[in-house]
């Protein structure tokens, strides 16, 4: 008997006109590691909530069809019993912690279950031991890092000893190191403890190879289900992007077997591609020196608590450059970005944007500098999208000479012109926030982790948009953890470590030399062939060296 069995599951949110899920028939076996993927709005999060029993209990709405859990109707199960069997970890760690201390947080679910104190003590101790949280037992939860918070959220659920763990994009708010650590834990839970894992994820580089089975969703329906390898082959033929780059590369060239890890990819590469045959690298085109937009000269910044977040930073950025700023958490990326924006005044050194000195006095706010923070909600308070754009123009005293139309068109927001920005999806909200700053025609665009929580198509769109802007002469600086995105779209990469710039140069130079800050394809090719970071580059340079293909020809 399968653990879960859904029959013709259909669901509408209370305000929804369209079904969020339609006609889903899915069965999940005990002990399985199931990956559910798909684009934004494909219904994968909704499905996760059905499996966790939150729909329709918490959301209401219109629910049709049946879901069985161990043969029993999920809708008729006692809520307490269900909570003991199924645990769910959500996207944002900030929004699932309830208590003030780590220990109390773990105990919260157990208290809700009404367990006796002895039982609670044992479970809390066990979980803290397993996840190595004993050190921070008494810590104030608000002071933890993002990775620690998410680990705590996981611990709190594990303490309830569920058989099934549903994870709804648990790593989307984490930096790569914390994300990797989190997924490794999940893998251990599956392999050692035999927990059934249902992982919802739209960025597959890190988790694709962990899954036993992948379900691809689209428009509230299951589009495909199969092993990672089967899915890769199937998806690539249909130009569906939900396959990680290495697998996509091999599927794309029609290779007989599809690797799901970088290691397998590397082995296939070495045994099947002749390194003597790689076409030579095209020399990078040296562009003429452009007009300089941003200049930072020996900039230092120290926080009031004494942390030297920026040390002796000197950068020059020319018009039309697209710079990616990489580095670990706490390396000073956001601080650097805020200094460029004029939000933080450097203690020493100078920051000049288009000749204006930002380092001394003067309030922030210059129509030539646009800054997009991590949370698009911070921008939205007008009643319509259009008003949101007009308000920026008004603040800067700029006229609307058709720029509002132009920007709405460019960001594909025309149809939402009169909509309330708060009614839009998160991807759309981010576009509105972006529109509200681009409307002032900035020369310098600063983006703080713009790809957070985005699926492949959305990222592609964003990338094309910023590339377009940089072609028009706008300098773009983006802070990101997303090396794939940086490799695809940036022209120059800065690597920050402990407040200092440790590498600065064209992307191939910086990412190609780096062991850790590289793309999946870059990692696969490392030490075998140079100058290959993206799928396109791999197709261009590797394919001619594929020995088997030459034989066929």
């Amino acid at each position, binding site marked *: 008997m399968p653990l879960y069995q859904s029959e013709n599951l259909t669901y509408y949110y209370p305000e929804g006109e369209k079904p969020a899920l339609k006609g889903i028939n899915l069965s999940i076996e005990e002990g399985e590691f199931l990956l559910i993927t798909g684009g934004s709005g494909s219904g994968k999060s909704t499905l996760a909530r059905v499996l966790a029993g*939150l729909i329709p209990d918490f959301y209401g709405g219109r629910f049709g069809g049946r879901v069985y859990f161990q043969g029993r109707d999920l809708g008729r199960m006692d809520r307490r019993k269900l909570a003991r069997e199924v645990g769910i970890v959500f996207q944002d760690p900030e929004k*699932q912690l309830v208590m003030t201390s780590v220990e109390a947080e773990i105990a919260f679910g157990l208290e809700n279950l009404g367990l006796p104190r002895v039982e609670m003590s044992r479970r809390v101790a066990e979980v803290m031991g397993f996840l190595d949280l004993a050190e921070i037992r008494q810590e104030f939860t608000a002071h933890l890092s993002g990775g620690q918070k998410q680990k705590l959220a996981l611990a709190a659920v594990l303490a309830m000893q569920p058989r099934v763990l549903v994870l709804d994009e648990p790593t989307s708010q984490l930096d790569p190191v914390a994300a990797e650590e989190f997924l490794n834990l999940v893998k251990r839970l599956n392999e050692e403890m035999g927990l059934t894992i249902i992982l919802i994820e739209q960025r597959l580089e890190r988790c694709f190879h962990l899954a036993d089975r992948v379900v691809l969703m689209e428009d509230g329906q299951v589009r495909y289900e199969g092993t990672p390898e089967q899915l890769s082959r199937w998806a690539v033929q249909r130009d569906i992007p939900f396959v990680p780059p290495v697998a996509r590369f091999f599927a794309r060239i029609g290779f007989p077997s599809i690797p799901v890890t970088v290691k397998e990819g590397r082995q296939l590469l070495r045994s099947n591609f002749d390194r003597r045959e790689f076409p030579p690298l095209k020399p990078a085109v040296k562009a003429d020196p452009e007009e300089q937009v941003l200049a930072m000269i020996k900039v230092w910044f120290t926080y009031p608590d004494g942390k030297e977040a920026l040390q002796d930073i000197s950068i020059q950025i020319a018009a039309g450059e697209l710079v990616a700023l990489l580095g670990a958490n706490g390396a000073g990326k956001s601080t650097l970005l805020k200094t460029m924006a004029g939000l933080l005044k450097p203690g020493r050194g100078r920051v000049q944007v288009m000749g204006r000195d930002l380092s001394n006095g003067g309030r922030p706010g210059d129509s030539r*500098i646009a800054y997009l923070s991590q949370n698009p*909600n911070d921008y939205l308070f007008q009643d319509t999208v259009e008003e949101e754009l007009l308000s920026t123009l008004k603040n800067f005293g700029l006229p609307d000479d058709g720029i509002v139309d132009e920007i709405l068109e460019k960001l594909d927001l025309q149809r939402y012109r009169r909509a309330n920005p708060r009614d839009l999806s998160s991807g759309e909200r981010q576009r509105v926030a972006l529109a509200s700053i681009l409307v002032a025609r900035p020369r310098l665009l600063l983006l703080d982790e713009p790809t957070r929580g985005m699926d492949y198509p959305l990222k592609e769109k964003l990338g094309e948009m910023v590339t377009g802007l940089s072609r028009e002469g706008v300098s773009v600086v983006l802070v990101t953890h997303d090396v794939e995105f940086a490799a695809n779209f940036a022209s120059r990469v800065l690597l920050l470590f402990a407040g200092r710039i440790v590498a600065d140069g064209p992307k191939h130079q910086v990412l190609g030399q780096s062991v850790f800050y590289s793309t999946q394809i870059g990692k696969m090719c490392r030490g075998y062939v140079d100058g290959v970071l993206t799928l396109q580059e791999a197709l261009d340079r590797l394919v001619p060296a594929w020995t088997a293909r030459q034989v066929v020809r």
Partner: protein
Amino acid sequence: MFEGFFYQEKGVFLQSLHPLAAVFYLGGLLVLTLLFTNPLYLLGLLLVILLCIAAVRGWETWETYFRLSLSMMILVIIINPLLVRTGETVIWWGPRLPVFGRLTVSLEAVCYGAAMSVRLLAVISIFCLYNLTVHPDKVLSLLARFASRSALVLSLATRMFPAMLRQMENIREVQAMRGVDFQAGTLKERLSRYAALMNILLLSSLEDSLEIAEAMQARAFGSGKRSCYRQDTWRPRDSLCLGGSLLALAVAVYGQAKGFSTFSFYPQLGYLIPGPMTVVVLIIILLALSVPVVLSWGWQRCPYIKAKI
């Protein structure tokens, strides 16, 4: 940001007390401070409180509290002599005022004002001590036994407060980059910009609160009767402190009833030390209240005591 007052774990003795013992001790101090008017007793209590603050290395925090209470102390010192006319020993005859009549200042009222300013300082110092020694979490968990839902609301709010301030700062920055100048313009303009900021904060937080509620529900909140996890260890030190507080309270009630510890300001100042019992009662109370200070000292210096309590 704004966390200077938030509890910091310093690993000192007084912070290791059971919340019940700590709250009882502090409550006892508060009751005694509000009970006594005798200047000697008030000064004695203040001394004990300050010793405790020294024992938790809290001088810096206390300084802020002291500065805060200065204005109130001055108010108490001024209002008492100017407006209370029960004292007989008039030392200054002031002008006649329309509502209040003739202003007089009596020696008794001046003394009373001074004593009350000491009481005020003592009360505020007790809360300073509370801030330094009791983790909010401990009180919340104490509360959770009786009122689990209220305790949950409070602990949720405590957890979210720092994030809320950070978010407010983010919104301010973002809006500043969009050309909103919070400093310029008329008061009404500035007010409306501030309101826009609160507006964003409200919209975003309300959305977030649904996600928090969902996470709570997913962890079986509201699925039936809750149990309570938190248990704090009760050690000999807690019994000793509790005993000290109880003794001090009992002796205080005895002293108050027998009139040993009372002091009358009006109509004329009484004798500060009418008899030996006044001193005896005071000494017993102060010694009983000093138990935590003495233990703290011993805990730091003497490994034997440390192991035993």
